[in-house]
């Protein structure tokens, strides 16, 4: 009930808002009410057609493939609501001006009369179809028609009332706060819908490898009780979620927050997204870590394990007696990855950095794909490739990197080398390619304890020669190992050249599930 009230409220409010703006912009125009009425009626008719159409397909799908249909409707609703969220975020500020301009143009006779109708009809159609899809999804997910209808009624009355009062100037409302609050609620709702959509696919026998139950909290909070049910529709709470549902939820939530944040960055509006992202990362162990624009230190293996789901955290902290901003600077990355096949592993990261005397800030989102090219031990050397795209969320240029990953076992020793090429792309990018090499050797003493060392060298631009001290060179001891489902490595790297921090402590922690 609550969720349908919120969705309907916001959709209706958006319609009223648009109608209100158009009305205000066309005050002295004859027949404007007629134009708006035509648009309103047309949009409503369109939304009803979509509803009937959905109903027909739903009836046809009865029995066979009902799960797929339910999943499809939920996907569609989640996509549309998510897209509207982002669209409003991006255009909300300019929307008023835009509609006023059109209204003025029509008033002045520069644009056809029906333009007004079209604007209203499109708004009705979009918001209306969202409500329709959402309602079907919720019915499919087991919500009763009564509670859905009650929620929708409350939403319509509330949306019209608030919108009208606002138009008549009877109440003042901070648009910014209004959109922030409802957007935050909708983000969770969309993530919950994605999780439910995957729940249907699992019920239909899909995602066999990712269908195992991650936890069972039904004894604490059953999702068929009143509280559980509300949490279920609002936040997608499930007492016995399948792994794929958890993944879908986290990825949807993360992606939406990142995208909102990116849009926000472009418009330099408020800090909602950043706060959300920072909150997410604050849930991570308080840490350590490194600095400057260079990344956390990790030597990648060329191996991919199919069905491995990995939650990863990397952090580093640096100290330097001469360079103040590198003294006490840290960097943290959190990521989630999955071995899609026995040769492809995909991973996404978020990154927070802090320089000395500055606040920590959310600086980047990264996407990585790793390809295992050879079977371990099949050739003299094991080979893999890593491609990475880093979206700078802090105002700098984006980055692409390609890495060649090499590994070789000699008795109880494992050696790995990464050769990387890196280039900035997009706005403010520098036209140069940088090269880096890292090396790791470890002694496989026992699973929980493998001592070794690492060397990390960043040669900077490959097009102009550089002095050793302008390049970044670090080396030091690292201990690797696995404790239960956790893989770790911790190390201390000494700066060998002037442009490297005197010392850097680093740690990587991975939690792995196998399916």
């Amino acid at each position: 009930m609550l969720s349908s009230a919120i969705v309907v409220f916001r959709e209706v409010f958006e319609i009223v808002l648009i109608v209100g703006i158009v009305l205000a912009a066309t005050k002295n125009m004859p027949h404007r009410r007629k134009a708006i009425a035509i648009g309103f009626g047309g949009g409503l008719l369109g939304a009803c057609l979509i509803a009937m159409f959905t109903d027909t397909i739903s009836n046809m799908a009865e029995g066979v493939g009902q799960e797929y249909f339910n999943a499809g409707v939920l996907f569609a609703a989640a996509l549309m609501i998510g897209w509207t969220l982002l669209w409003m975020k991006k255009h909300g500020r300019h929307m008023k001006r835009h509609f006023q301009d059109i209204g003025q143009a029509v008033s002045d006779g520069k644009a056809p009369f029906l333009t007004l109708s079209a604007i209203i009809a499109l708004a009705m159609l979009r918001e209306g179809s969202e409500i329709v899809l959402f309602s079907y999804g919720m019915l499919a997910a087991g919500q009763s028609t009564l509670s859905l209808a009650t929620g929708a009624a409350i939403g319509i009355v509330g949306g019209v009332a608030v919108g009208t009062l606002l138009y008549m100037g009877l109440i003042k409302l901070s648009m910014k706060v209004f959109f922030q609050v409802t957007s935050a609620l909708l983000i969770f709702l969309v993530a919950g819908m994605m999780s439910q959509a995957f729940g249907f696919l699992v019920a239909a026998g899909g995602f066999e490898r990712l269908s195992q139950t991650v936890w069972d909290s039904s004894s604490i909070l059953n999702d068929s009780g009143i509280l559980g049910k509300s949490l279920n529709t609002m936040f997608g709470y499930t007492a016995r979620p399948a792994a794929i549902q958890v993944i879908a939820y986290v990825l949807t939530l993360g992606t939406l927050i990142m995208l909102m944040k990116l849009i926000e960055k472009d418009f330099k509006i408020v800090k909602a997204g950043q706060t959300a992202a920072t909150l997410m990362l604050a849930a991570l162990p308080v840490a350590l870590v490194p600095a400057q624009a260079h990344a956390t230190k990790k030597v990648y293996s060329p191996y991919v394990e199919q069905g491995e789901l990995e939650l990863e955290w990397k952090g580093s902290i640096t100290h330097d007696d001469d360079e103040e901003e590198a003294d006490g600077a840290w960097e943290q990355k959190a990521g989630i990855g999955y071995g899609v096949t026995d040769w492809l592993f995909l991973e996404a990261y978020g990154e927070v950095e802090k320089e000395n005397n500055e606040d920590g800030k959310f600086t980047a989102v990264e996407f990585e794909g790793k390809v295992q090219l050879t079977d371990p031990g099949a050739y003299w050397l094991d080979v893999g490739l890593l491609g990475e795209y880093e979206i700078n969320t802090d105002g700098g240029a984006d980055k692409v990197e390609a890495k060649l990953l090499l590994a070789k076992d000699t008795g109880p020793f494992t050696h790995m080398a990464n050769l990387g090429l890196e280039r900035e792309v997009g706005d403010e990018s520098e036209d140069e390619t940088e090269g880096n090499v890292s090396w790791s050797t470890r002694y496989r003493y026992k699973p929980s304890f493998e001592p070794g060392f690492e060397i990390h060298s960043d040669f900077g631009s490959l097009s102009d020669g550089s002095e050793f001290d302008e390049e970044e060179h670090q080396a030091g001891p690292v201990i690797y190992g696995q404790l239960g489902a956790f893989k770790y490595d911790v190390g201390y790297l000494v700066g060998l050249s002037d442009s490297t921090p005197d010392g850097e402590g680093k740690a990587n922690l991975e939690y792995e599930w196998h399916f």
Partner: protein
Amino acid sequence: MARLFAVSIFSAVLAVFSLSAHAADEFRLTIKDHRFQPETLEIPAGRKVKITIANEDPTPEEFESYELNREKVIKGNSTGVVFIGPLDPGAYPFFGEFNMSTAKGQIVAK
């Protein structure tokens, strides 16, 4: 520097694909009812060996060995290939990560 870098990467890749495996000795392991058959597999020491693992169970299994530094997931009713060696003489235990109580075995290099 750029040229040196490019050349070194290129030659590393070439090295790998030219140094392709000599015809490795081939062996076979079967997984049935969450057990390996045979549970002790003898292979020659000092040679590279290709082991084809046939999983005849409907559920996936992971061939894993810390001593051999290998992990390989094999889906239900399918086969996977693991390359090992050259090994020093000795016993190298392995197990099935998804059914660790029953799926155990060792490779003996002689």
